[in-house]
């Protein structure tokens, strides 16, 4: 996709690390950050002067755009955190704190942002952690997750798409079976929101967690979650909100209940511009562009002798994240050569998801991961395929 993102001015690179953070971003993202920083700069919700009101408008505008993208109607239920990891920690703690002796259900495709707080708090609160394994094709069967859910389950945590293998777990079936027990489902949309069509309007027990700096094309330091009406939680972080200032009790209303301390308005200004760009292009259009490139990459690498590709070939259950290895080669060595010799930026190793690598059989070495984004081109893919071929052939 061309026209509104400029990158590589300092380094001429092929950037295939969009699952870590998207790059480049649309120019309007940086224009919005700069405009806020230079011309507005005030703290929203604290003072009442015109600049503070303008800052509050920026934050509210971003909530509105995100609620449109999520297909929900309540912008005040969009809660900002500094990233998806912080949102996950808030949710893990809040959902597990009163569940001593119960169980929590999750999948082996989870990122450490989920698995680490789950492991810690499950041990602390004596909660059974039920990890549903994916197959060797990195697919989780929603029925397996549903079978593990019972009346003693306090929450379900599901990764919508694996950050390692790009495989999608359909959350709808899981949400419906959890709803029968009144159980909330926390959905990690870090690899899907903005690039994979979703709508949460039919689910009042699904809490989507998002990051701002991947498919939403915003700056790093942005993220959050959407709290549906059907779920009531206690906050994890408390403090000043600019509301109820006479009271030493945390406000009970949203979003203030979960948003203590000054927000990252610079980041939110940029995120708003990123989300507006995504909405203008359309998630379906962005997905088509990225999946066309992904299939070109998949087919290209499939033809390279010695290359092993991971994950299923059900394209409707894939996002454009591709893990591979070259037989007999260390993934770190391959990624280093891709960077040094070909200017290709990608990520090797375990990608903060050891459970996923163990399930698929790529632990402990890991894989090399190519992840495509809105600004990648066919030329990028061809450079990458050619580079892998040359490395596999011994250059």
């Amino acid at each position, binding site marked *: 996709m061309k026209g509104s993102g400029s990158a590589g001015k300092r380094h001429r690179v092929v950037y295939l690390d969009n699952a870590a953070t998207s790059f480049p971003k649309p120019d309007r993202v940086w224009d919005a950050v700069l405009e806020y920083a230079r011309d507005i700069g005030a703290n929203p919700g604290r003072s009442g002067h015109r600049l503070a009101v303008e800052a509050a408008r920026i934050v*509210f505008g971003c909530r509105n755009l995100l609620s449109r993208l999520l297909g929900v109607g309540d912008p005040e239920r969009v809660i900002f955190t500094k990233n998806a990891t912080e949102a996950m920690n808030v949710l893990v703690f809040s959902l597990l704190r009163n569940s001593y002796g119960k169980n929590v259900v999750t999948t082996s495709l989870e990122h450490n942002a989920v698995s680490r707080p789950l492991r810690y708090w499950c041990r602390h609160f004596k909660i059974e952690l039920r990890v549903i394994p994916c197959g060797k094709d990195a697919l989780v069967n929603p029925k397996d997750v549903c079978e593990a859910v019972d009346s003693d389950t306090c929450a379900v945590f599901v990764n919508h798409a694996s950050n390692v293998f790009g495989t999608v777990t359909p959350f709808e079936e899981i949400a419906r079976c959890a709803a029968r027990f009144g159980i909330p489902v926390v959905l990690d949309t870090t690899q899907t929101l903005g690039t994979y069509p979703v709508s949460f309007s039919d689910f009042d027990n699904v809490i989507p967690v998002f990051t701002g700096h991947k498919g939403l094309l915003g700056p790093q330091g942005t993220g959050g979650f959407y709290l549906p009406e059907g779920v009531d939680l206690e906050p994890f972080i408390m403090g000043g909100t600019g509301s109820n200032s006479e009271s030493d009790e945390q406000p009970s209303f949203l*979003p*203030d209940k979960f948003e203590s301390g000054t927000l990252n308005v610079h980041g939110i200004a940029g995120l708003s511009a990123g989300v507006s760009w995504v909405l203008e292009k359309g998630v379906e259009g962005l997905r088509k562009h990225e999946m066309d490139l992904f299939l070109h990459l998949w087919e290209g690498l499939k033809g390279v002798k010695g290359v092993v590709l991971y994950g299923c070939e059900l394209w409707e259950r894939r996002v454009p994240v591709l893990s591979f290895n070259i037989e007999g080669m260390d993934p770190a060595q391959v990624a280093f050569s891709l960077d040094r010799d070909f200017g290709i930026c990608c990520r090797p190793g375990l990608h903060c998801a050891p459970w996923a690598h163990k399930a698929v059989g790529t632990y402990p070495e890991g894989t090399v991961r190519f992840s495509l984004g809105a600004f990648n081109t066919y030329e990028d893919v061809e450079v990458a395929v050619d580079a892998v071929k040359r490395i596999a052939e011994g250059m």
Partner: protein
Amino acid sequence: MCFFFLFKSTTEVMKADAVFSKKGVKYEILPVPKKLSSECGLCVKACGEWKELLNVLLNEKVKVTAVYDEGLGECWKKT
């Protein structure tokens, strides 16, 4: 006549801001007058018939907590 519209949070003030702006209502956002008690530091001062203005906000699901006249007499309070 102009009236003070009070809200729980800045987010609700921003909702009112968007609604009044869209409907062409004459209004200002300002700090809550000291004599009034509000959970949020900001309020909206809008001019017109207060019941009509209130309904405009409530119909758009803006959570108004109270309405006062300029003499700070209470016109309406959410129960």
